[in-house]
């Protein structure tokens, strides 16, 4: 029975850790499907985590708002993420900047800006104070009472439910709506899309801002569920894992979600293993390393090839040949 408990805990924790990755990977999907590389997911998550924690702190600890406080923080993060993504769109879409360089710049900006603002607002402290009220877990009535399975699948932070909803919605948008079709066209063959009367610039701006909003939602998820504050290491590389999940998932919503869940297992394993004292069997460093190694193997085609959108990474200039 011990093993069932461990397995149940592992699944539960996997979902907790994967939620942020799912948000960010889905965010990256919009941007990259439109043809704009987004290694700035990391910075966008950072901004989301900071905004979420800071706003939820003022709403909860200062204004005395109750259960709405984390939601307010979450929404503020989404807005902040969309705005923060603007410079990336501005540089890489309007000014044909190298998208990787622009992304690197944005990641620097995110670290600098959030810590600068944190110190400015919270009198010199490099982190936000601990939240009185982060999200608390929801249990779906009756289902959550099922032994083992209930704990694994039907008891989770509200953000996890939102994330799964976002994936479903994204799949619908991408595959079933004119917007999705245009997004695909812009990412595969921008010149043809332009000829067909689709605004390549417009689509890319929207896509990059959507990616900022969703990645920030991912960052806010971490700050409002597991850590209950923001500090310099709240995100520490999860944006890059989300990017890996997106590629691993071949730029498709459900596959990206599965990849994010898979990478979530790696994080979950390291905490569940520590709780149950299993790290003596597998060195913790290998568990940490696993998702990255796997990504490389996938990319190298040892597990299955990933084909990116054709125009990914190339700036589009109107009237180019």
């Amino acid at each position: 029975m011990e093993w069932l408990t461990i397995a149940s805990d592992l699944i539960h924790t996997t979902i907790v850790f994967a939620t942020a990755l799912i948000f960010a990977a889905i965010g990256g999907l919009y941007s990259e499907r439109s043809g704009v590389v987004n290694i700035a997911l990391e910075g966008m998550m950072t901004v989301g985590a900071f905004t979420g924690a800071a706003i939820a702190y003022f709403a909860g600890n200062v204004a005395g708002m109750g259960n709405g406080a984390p939601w307010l923080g979450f929404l503020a993060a989404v807005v902040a993420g969309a705005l923060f993504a603007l410079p990336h769109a501005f540089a890489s879409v309007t000014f044909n900047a190298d998208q990787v360089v622009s992304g690197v710049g944005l990641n620097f900006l995110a670290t600098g800006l959030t810590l600068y603002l944190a110190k400015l607002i919270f009198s010199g402290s490099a982190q936000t104070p601990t939240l009185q009220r982060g999200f608390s877990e929801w249990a779906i009535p009756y289902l959550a009472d099922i032994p083992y399975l209930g704990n694994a699948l039907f008891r989770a932070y509200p953000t996890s439910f939102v994330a799964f909803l976002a994936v479903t919605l994204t799949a619908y948008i991408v595959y079933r709506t004119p917007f999705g079709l245009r997004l695909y066209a812009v990412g595969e063959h921008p010149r043809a899309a332009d000829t067909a009367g689709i605004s390549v610039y417009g689509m890319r701006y929207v896509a990059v801002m959507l990616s900022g909003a969703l990645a920030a939602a991912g960052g806010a998820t971490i700050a409002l569920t597991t850590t209950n504050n923001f500090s310099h290491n709240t995100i520490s590389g999860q944006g890059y894992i989300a990017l890996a999940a997106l590629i691993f998932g071949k730029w498709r919503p459900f596959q990206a979600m599965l990849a994010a869940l898979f990478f979530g297992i790696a994080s979950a394993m390291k905490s569940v293993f520590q709780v149950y004292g299993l790290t003596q069997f597998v060195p913790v460093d290998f568990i940490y390393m696993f998702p990255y190694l796997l990504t490389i193997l996938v990319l190298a085609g040892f597990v299955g090839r990933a084909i990116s959108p054709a125009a990914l990474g190339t700036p589009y200039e109107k009237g180019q040949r």
Partner: protein
Amino acid sequence: MANKQENRMPKTFRRISALFKEGTWLPVIAVLLGLASGALIMLLGSYNPLTAYQSLLTRSFGDMYNFGEMIRQVTPLIFTGLAVAFAFRTGLFNIGAEGQFIIGAMAGIYVGVFWHLPWGLHAVAAVAAGALAGGIWGGIAGYLKAARGVHEVISTIMLNWIALYLVNYLTKRFMLEPGQMRSRTAQESAWLSADWLSGLFEHARIHFGILIGLGCAVVFYIVLLQTKLGFELRAVGLNPHASEYAGIKVKQSMIAAMFGSGMFAGLGGAAEMLGVYHYLSVEAAFRGYGFLGLAVALIGRNTALGTVLSAFLLGALTYGAPGMKFGAGVPEELIDIVIAMVIFFVAAAGIITAMLRLLSGRRRKKEAA
């Protein structure tokens, strides 16, 4: 269309934009704009930017100790900057300098701890081991690109993390100093630091790595611009298809380019450890020299001299940043914002051109009125 637009531009602007095509002044203007953005943000936070920048300079250049420490900060940036620049010149984007740096650091310390060689020779061997290990780590990304079509941006990001955890594991498993979360100390014969040198700088941790770094910049220049290999590497970077047609082995040259790039970073890692710490600590996060190296190379426009100058600039800024806190109360993270803005302005050179166009347009209107 483009020509017409240029003809409509006022003379002064055309002259300025001619300078941009050379590209020489672009980084300088970008840096100035970056500093100006930083000043603006300080003003918004009701700080005094002049006092802040002044205290930054005082910390970096104020006395011999701080000057020596600033040089110590500059040293790894020269290596990682050259690594990124070398790859860039051959058409590759090496985000993996961080990982190559870590692997090089481990190899250097490994030789420093376990090998037994005479003075001088030991340090040379350790540094060479660092270069080789970093080269191999970079070469993996080159191989993955050449043979399996994996984009180097993604593979090098992943290799950074793998390097971090692999080195942590190896350090804990084979080199651990009992009771501490770091490796055993390298033997003194492998050190790149010397008492007399650091004595000159009031015991700052400046070390011979800076000389190796400057030497690397010369090697960078010679290999890239004066040798057949360098010519082929650059040719592949400019146009892989034409190079293939001209009989250059494109795949080999990609691997060679990433190997060379990784060597610079690996050297930097080994030099940093053998010069400053003499041991390897188990790290929870990246040191960040590889990522700063990206900024260094970009601002230095991927040339040898440019990279060295920009390493000095970013080294002085990042080392001096905490000074702003004491001098003007400004959080040191402001410098990250400045660096980010500089990267933006360099990356999207069009932004600067557009700004200048806007400025000169306004001036024309004023003249007309």
